[in-house]
């Protein structure tokens, strides 16, 4: 992927850039590596302490439930990459709303219609978020928060007469293909699509440019506002997909099923090595960070740590990672 190609180009030009090579290699240090080092380290720790078979089971669970972290992380990553200050706090409420809509529509009109309705709802929320930010010039953090309040209310009105998702969808969501959970495959496919979108398309390059310097991007002919608009719509769509899958796996949509993903979506993006000030995203880092956080949580659970200790460990982990990564990113 991208970091590799960058590495090759450096070694190619090594001859004429002798003095700065070390500095340049340091700059190119792939930020996503650390999350994988962490995840594998924790994995080995589980294998050593609890035995290989238990470790295998834990990793398999991680591939089901850690996948939701990946999905919300991807949504948040796109928004954060579009520049300083951009953040989507409506992810949890979109998850709840999409789950509700999907379950209802699927009950009445079939699975495909449910998917379409839920995704459309997510995209519409994304568009509404963007309009609040653009037209009313409300800072993204408050605009998405306000809209999430409204979405919560809409979701509450939809929650009457709870019913379970169709059996076919539920069995599919909990099924495996060649030992790999279906959900992990879906997330993998989506990740590949987003990686291609980010690194190989005009939209993705434009997004990076907008994130690094919107004015320079505008002068270079990038549609800054169009890019931002698409990013919020994509984020809403991915959050909606997460909501549908979450409802499918857990046998029904609940109003608070997205709550824990608000902070986690940001944590996963940051630990994964995406630049917080925007302009540089890493899809693979989101995977590493999700697995890292999920496995750490599993270890703490297995050790019998209570909710308080787990929360403290989570927080310290985030702070340590950011402090260790330090100064590389420009602040705002």
């Amino acid at each position, binding site marked *: 992927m991208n970091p590799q190609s960058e590495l090759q180009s450096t070694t190619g030009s090594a001859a004429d850039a002798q003095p700065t090579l070390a500095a340049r290699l340091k700059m190119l240090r792939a930020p996503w590596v650390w999350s994988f080092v962490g995840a594998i380290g924790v994995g080995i720790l589980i294998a050593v302490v609890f035995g290989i078979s238990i470790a295998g089971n834990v990793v398999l669970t991680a591939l089901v439930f850690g996948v939701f972290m990946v999905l919300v992380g991807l949504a948040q990553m796109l928004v954060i990459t579009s520049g300083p200050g951009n953040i989507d706090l409506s992810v949890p409420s979109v998850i709840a709303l999409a789950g509700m809509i999907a379950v209802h529509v699927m009950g009445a009109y079939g699975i495909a219609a449910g998917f379409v309705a839920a995704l459309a709802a997510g995209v519409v929320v994304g568009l509404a978020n963007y309009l609040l930010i653009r037209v009313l010039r409300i800072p993204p953090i408050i605009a998405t928060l306000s809209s999430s309040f409204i979405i919560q209310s809409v979701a*509450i009105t939809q929650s009457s007469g709870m019913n379970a998702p169709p059996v076919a969808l539920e069995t599919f969501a909990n099924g495996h293909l060649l030992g790999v959970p279906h959900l992990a495959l879906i997330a993998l496919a989506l990740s590949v699509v987003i990686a291609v979108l980010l690194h190989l398309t005009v939209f993705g390059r434009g997004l990076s440019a907008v994130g690094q310097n919107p004015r320079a991007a505008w002068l270079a002919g990038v549609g800054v506002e169009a890019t931002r608009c698409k990013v919020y719509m994509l984020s809403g769509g991915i959050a909606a997909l997460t909501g549908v899958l979450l409802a499918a796996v857990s046998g029904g949509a609940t109003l608070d099923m997205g709550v824990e993903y608000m902070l986690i979506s940001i944590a996963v993006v940051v630990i994964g090595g995406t630049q917080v000030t925007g302009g540089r995203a890493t899809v693979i880092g989101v995977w590493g960070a999700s697995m890292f956080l999920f496995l750490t949580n599993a270890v703490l659970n297995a050790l019998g740590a209570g909710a*308080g200790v787990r929360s403290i460990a989570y927080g310290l982990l985030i702070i340590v990672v950011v402090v260790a990564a330090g100064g590389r990113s420009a602040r705002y």
Partner: protein
Amino acid sequence: MTPSVATGLNVRNVRNARLRALLPVFSLVVILVPIFILQPATFSYFGLGLLLNLAVPIVFATLAQLAVITVNDLDLSIGAFVSLTACIGATLCVREPWLGIVALIGCVLAYAAIGALIEFRQIPSIVVTLGLSFVWTGLAVLLLPSPGGSSPLWLGSLMTYQTPLIAAPIVWSVVIALVGHLLLMRSSAGVRVRAAGGNPRAMSRFGWSMVKSRAILYGVAGIFGVCSGLSLLGLTTSADPNLALRYTLLSIASVILGGGEFVGGRVSVWGAVLGAITLTVAASFLAFLNISPDWQVGMQGVILIAVLSLRVLLQRGGRR
């Protein structure tokens, strides 16, 4: 630049500054007038006291957020921090007052240390405080696994103290705003720390320490956070680790509503206090409207959007 252009700019700046100062007052009036029309009884000592019952802790939390925003940072942990200090107040301060006070001082020092760390390592505050919010919540859960505890007696009597003539929350808010305004806007130390947000490079060239400024502002935020937690505890008389989580975003919204900006050290203490009061009143306003409980949360969002867009419309008018 010709003198006439310079004065033109100057006049416009002054007008913008004046508009910015008027906005929070205007939005408060816009919220208050319909309430007084719908419920004339609220325009009295007890009515205002009830309407603004929870204003004091929100005002404190807003000033904590304001201190952090002054230096171009954002504090996503203030809600969790306020909950933690309320939990400390409800457990340690009742059982072993000395230990409680040491714990609260420790919290403030931790906040200052985090500020220094953010400057020292040049890391984004939003992420560090996000991590911190997990830490504070975890500590609060360890201290008080289930909602409960009790408020120290002196705290309860302080918060329920009846001031003569004007309802207590208003008196408190004015006093807090006055102290905050004098400290941040009028004292030389205040000007210095505001410069840290306005022009960090100029500041470090002048030989003032950025690490020190950030640590001071975060420490001040910690002190206001402790005040917020304790005053909230005095009002609710019991604590819970999730008591004040919504304060994080409420405080950010109040600062912005009060005319503060995310960048540039441009903040207004009076504006932020008015913003906090506006949002408190807005929450009480919903109770008068008789809307269904399903839509209570949604209406909060609508009011937030309406009030903030009001601010933008007025600013745009001022620019023209």
